[in-house]
């Protein structure tokens, strides 16, 4: 009796340990999430200042009849300055420079884009929400304190007084920051976006998939279905398992030495990045694919052979389709892992300031994780929230990919 109680309480204790372990890891995940979300959510809104914009044709050298091309090529810099002067009358030159700094440096592009969409507004006045500079944005969001001595602030007392006046007039407001999702990197935090990095990662993943998936599938089919098990296959198997555990930076070095050094592919392009990530994902795919080929029962193969199918027909008509859900799941998980890798990209130069959104796998690009790394290194305070927002986006992609993997397995996998 006594010993039964002892055994039962041992079990209870064990369950308590397990619960504690789960709770502790949940706690850490929650802290991480809270930290990322609380700093990153700011990146999804940007501060704007309402201003009266008069599209004076004299300042932009266009008229009602100008073609779209002319509207695009015109310089809006003088107009931008004029907008500031009109909305803040009676400034001396020094005050003007300070007030101009409160608006984003390149709001001439904002004016241009508006006029391209609404060419009929030439010679008319509109109310426009003009993006504030990142330094002002950070003050409004409360990320940069106002109460420190003036010399330690990037926004001085005069600018603060102008800000307070604008706020009391109800002209300062926050809008959803589309730019974060549509623009490439920039050195002005208020106009920096993640889209260039997303495209870079996408191209790399497409290359990675089209390289690693067919090769991985064929290799595993050959090893599993055609070749006779023996010493050679054992050695290959050990090597594949080994490769799956090799640190990713080694694949980066391989890419740098082989693809860039010997073959002469260009530096910092998604083609090379994708191939390197493909090398890295290949063992994962082969292992997953072999496991799912093995789980197809021999009766299927024997049935097909019995009705006169050749070995190849058996494999391609029956075994591979049945094993595909498992293979795909492994592939997606491998690709999700590849998406989060920075080290191999570092070696082949895909960690770089790239402003232009890449148009194909041969354009210089950076990847999502490398963009996050670059922002985290930047001194400007505005990049802090961009870093966290980038992490949120990366996590979202990972969750989507992993969920897809689970769904494919649930839906399509056949239980024998």
């Amino acid at each position: 009796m006594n010993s039964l109680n002892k055994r039962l309480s041992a079990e209870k204790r064990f369950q308590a340990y397990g619960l504690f372990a789960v709770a502790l890891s949940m706690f850490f995940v929650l802290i991480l999430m809270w930290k990322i979300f609380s700093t990153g959510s700011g990146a999804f809104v940007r501060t704007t200042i309402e201003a009266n914009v008069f599209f004076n044709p004299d300042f932009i050298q266009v008229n009602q009849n100008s073609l779209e091309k002319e509207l695009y090529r015109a310089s809006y810099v003088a107009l931008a300055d004029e907008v500031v002067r009109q909305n803040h009358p009676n400034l001396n030159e020094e005050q003007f420079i300070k007030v101009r700094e409160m608006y984003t440096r390149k709001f001439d592009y904002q004016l241009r884009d508006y006029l391209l969409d609404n060419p009929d507004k030439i010679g008319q006045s509109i109310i426009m929400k003009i993006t504030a500079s990142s330094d002002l944005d950070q003050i409004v969001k409360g990320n940069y304190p106002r109460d420190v001595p003036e010399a330690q602030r990037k926004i001085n007392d005069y600018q603060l007084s102008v800000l307070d006046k604008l706020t009391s007039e109800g002209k300062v407001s926050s809008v959803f920051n589309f730019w974060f999702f549509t623009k490439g990197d920039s050195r002005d935090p208020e106009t920096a976006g993640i889209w260039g990095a997303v495209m870079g990662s996408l191209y790399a993943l497409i290359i990675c998939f089209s390289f690693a998936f067919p090769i991985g599938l064929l290799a595993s089919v050959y090893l599993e279905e055609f070749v006779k098990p023996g010493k050679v296959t054992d050695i290959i198997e050990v090597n594949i398992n080994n490769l799956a555990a090799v640190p990713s930076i080694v694949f980066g070095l391989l890419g740098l030495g082989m693809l860039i050094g010997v073959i002469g592919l260009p530096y910092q392009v998604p083609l090379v990045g994708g191939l390197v990530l493909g090398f890295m994902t290949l063992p994962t795919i082969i292992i997953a694919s072999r496991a799912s080929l093995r789980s197809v029962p021999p009766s299927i193969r024997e049935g097909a052979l019995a009705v006169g199918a050749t070995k190849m027909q058996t494999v391609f008509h029956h075994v591979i389709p049945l094993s595909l859900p498992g293979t795909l799941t492994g592939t997606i998980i491998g690709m999700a892992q590849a998406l989060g890798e920075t080290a191999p990209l570092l070696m082949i130069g895909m960690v770089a300031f790239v402003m232009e959104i890449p148009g194909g796998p041969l354009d210089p690009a950076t990847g999502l994780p490398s963009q996050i790394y670059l922002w985290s290194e930047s001194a400007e305070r505005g990049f802090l929230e961009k870093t966290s927002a980038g992490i949120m986006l990366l996590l979202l992609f990972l969750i989507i990919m992993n969920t897809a993997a689970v769904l494919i397995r649930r839906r399509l996998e056949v239980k024998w």
Partner: protein
Amino acid sequence: MKKSILTFLALAVSVLFSAETFARDQINIVGSSTVYPYGTVNAQRLGESGFKTPTYNPTGTGGGMKLFCAGVGVEHPDITGASRPMKSKEAKLCVENGVTNVVEVMWANDGITFSHSNAAEKMDLTRAEIWTAMAAKVVVDGEVVENPYTKWNEINSSLPAYKIEVLVAPPTSGTRDAFDGNVMEKGCAAMGYEDITGGDDGCTDYREDGRIIEMGENDTLIVQKLVEDKERFGYFGYSYLKDNGDKLQPASLEGVDPSEESIAAYEYPVARPLFIYLKKDHIGVVPGIQEFAQMMVSDEAIGSNGYLTKIGAAPMVSELLSRTRSDVDTLAAFDVVACAEKKHPLKDAGYAFSGKLCK
């Protein structure tokens, strides 16, 4: 099936060969992470003026030199940023690979600040004091001993009783090179270490009792760590101090605070020039290289209210600046072969950095 596999292979091969002849109309910059914030801002301005925006790959000064000197041709970078002048070893590598047409652009200055939290008492340090706090072996009463100090006031009683703890950059960092050369070696000499041991071996060895903490190249992390504990010190470029003025303050060195003026005049002891090197053979092949350098040394960039000055670059004295400007305008080639033999036209000009040129 066989057919589709063959098609796939053919496609892959054709992609490879088309990449061989891959031309580039976008400048590729590599190099120093200290130059990165300035180089990228300048790249963006070049992009706004109608060229394609250059890419900048922060590989570090040494890594950048290696890539830059690897050869001529669009598969190699066009410009490298450097937080110290090219070394003779690197010049040799350039010469071996046929990269002999190089333009050296010394475009601005950078100061390395020895900073700590705003919450701490402002400190005025000498380089001898910093060396005594950080070196593995120090001079006490005319003898070289293992560093016995644990608090700053033990070194100089007028300093606060803060514990000695300094966050430092990794050995590959150009910032660390500059700090070791301008602070550690000078402090070491001032304390008479070389007279006792007969050499400067060990001058730049940091103590290994946990008081010197090596951080990565991530300066943002160092800022965070300094805010957490006001007694800690760390060193990094002046631009970081400028952006974190609400959190950090610099210690003054030999009585001089870092500022644009004190750095430009090399009055602040840890001021160093920053460089970019242009590959002259690429000018005319990849558009915008000369324009990039011209923008970088223009008044709009490094004048008193310039866009690079605003983020922490300190302008150079006018004689050096006009020399650089004429170099950029005429594309005066920098003699890489002479540099490989440790010769440089400014070597005997008597500037604080002269000894470092083509070392």
